[in-house]
């Protein structure tokens, strides 16, 4: 089961969201050494974590984080439009049917086979979410090493412009076309994993 959370919530509101921000800190700050803000020494949260973001999270019943992605609307500030517009030939795509995929994060505690399963479930859930909500395109900014993994998922993915060397890594903007055919493309690539998509967000009950 994959949960989706419309909107960022601060610490304490949801175990699944909190654990996601904790693993985001482990992966993006500790491992990949990104210079992004950390709250309380444990949560990675940036300016795009707002009420407009949507989070898809694969989590255990107790809120343990396995993997997650963050979706951002493109008709508001987002990573490609605000930080890397030059990666797109011409204006980067915007619209109610175009969303940006960001912060794809798998728990560092997962073993290799589990990582693959979570990745496939999250990808399938993302496509299902898109089909349910009329999203026709995703955009994303990807750096070295990630492009091959994004392509291998099987969906229809093409560059929005020439890649550039940014901070020593080849970085490019991509657009992923979503259509009725996309699920079949995932199946052909072996990355389809049937998954139940459910609105997340039991708030942690307050002590009586």
């Amino acid at each position, binding site marked *: 089961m994959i949960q989706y959370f419309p909107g960022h919530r601060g610490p304490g509101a949801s175990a699944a969201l909190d654990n996601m921000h904790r693993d985001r800190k482990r992966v993006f700050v500790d491992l990949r050494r990104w210079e992004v803000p950390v709250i309380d020494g444990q949560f990675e949260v940036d300016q795009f974590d707002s009420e407009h973001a949507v989070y898809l999270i694969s989590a255990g019943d107790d809120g343990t984080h396995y993997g997650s992605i963050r979706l951002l609307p493109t008709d508001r500030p987002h990573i490609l439009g605000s930080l890397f517009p030059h990666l797109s030939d011409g204006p980067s795509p915007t619209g109610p049917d175009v969303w940006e995929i960001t912060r794809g994060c798998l728990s560092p505690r997962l073993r290799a086979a589990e990582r693959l399963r979570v990745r496939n479930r999250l990808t399938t859930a993302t496509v299902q979410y898109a089909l349910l909500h009329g999203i026709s395109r995703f955009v994303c900014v990807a750096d*070295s*090493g990630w492009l*091959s993994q994004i392509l*291998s998922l099987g969906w229809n993915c093409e560059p929005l412009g*020439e*890649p550039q060397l940014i901070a020593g890594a*080849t970085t490019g903007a991509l657009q992923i076309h979503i259509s009725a055919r996309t699920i079949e493309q995932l199946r052909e690539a072996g990355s389809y994993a049937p998954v139940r998509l459910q609105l997340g967000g039991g708030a942690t009950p307050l002590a009586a």
Partner: protein
Amino acid sequence: MADQFDFNGMISGFLLAKDEADLHNHLDRCAHELGFRKFAMGHHVDLSGPPQDAIRVTNYDPAWIERSLGDGYFVYDPVHQASTKTAMGFLWSDIPDMIRLTKAQKAVLEAARPYGLSEGYTIPVHVPGEYRGTCSFGADSLDGLRANALPLANMIGTYAFECARRIMRSRRGGSDGPPNVPQLTDRQRDSLVLVARGKGDPEIGTLLGIAATTAHGHVENVRRAYGNAQRPLLVARALFDGQISYSEVFGR
């Protein structure tokens, strides 16, 4: 005359290629558009006896290929070894900063020069669970490269690799998965790392807190997963295909 570099055309060529011949011709064209002359792309497998499903597409001089295979260069290919150290593209001139080159490896780099491979750029490709691979572009000199050639080569090499995976998948009729690194249990993998560190079964047992016979069983299962390879070859193959990493075996 306007410099028409059709990047979108380069990429869609890979999305549209129907077979290995299409892919070969298109990758050849892209290499030249970037200012390179040579390319080689494929999975890192035993090239003298590759598994059925390994990809290998190249326009390297057949005389060089024959020499590499005949003299066994590919086993200690410095480009391959460097590619296991990074997820980013790298110039061959960077290799001495990435790994400690042996005399034999320096000799390989030198021997390749007359075959249009004096300079080059290699893009590692790693899809989790599969054999690692690379796409390399070679030239006599980097002076002829177009502006922004390296990031472009990076993306082109990655699309080319995905194209090859897609073609192989359709050739197999889509039934099996892509060429897989043998799937091991956690315990089997732990035992394999210890074998690579030179431990015998009793010591593996002690280190993992299991009986020596159990440790032996794990290692035997790993050997079976690798087609009954003997222990030394097992270690070479597992390092080669990325099942275990150099840093796990030798420590940071």
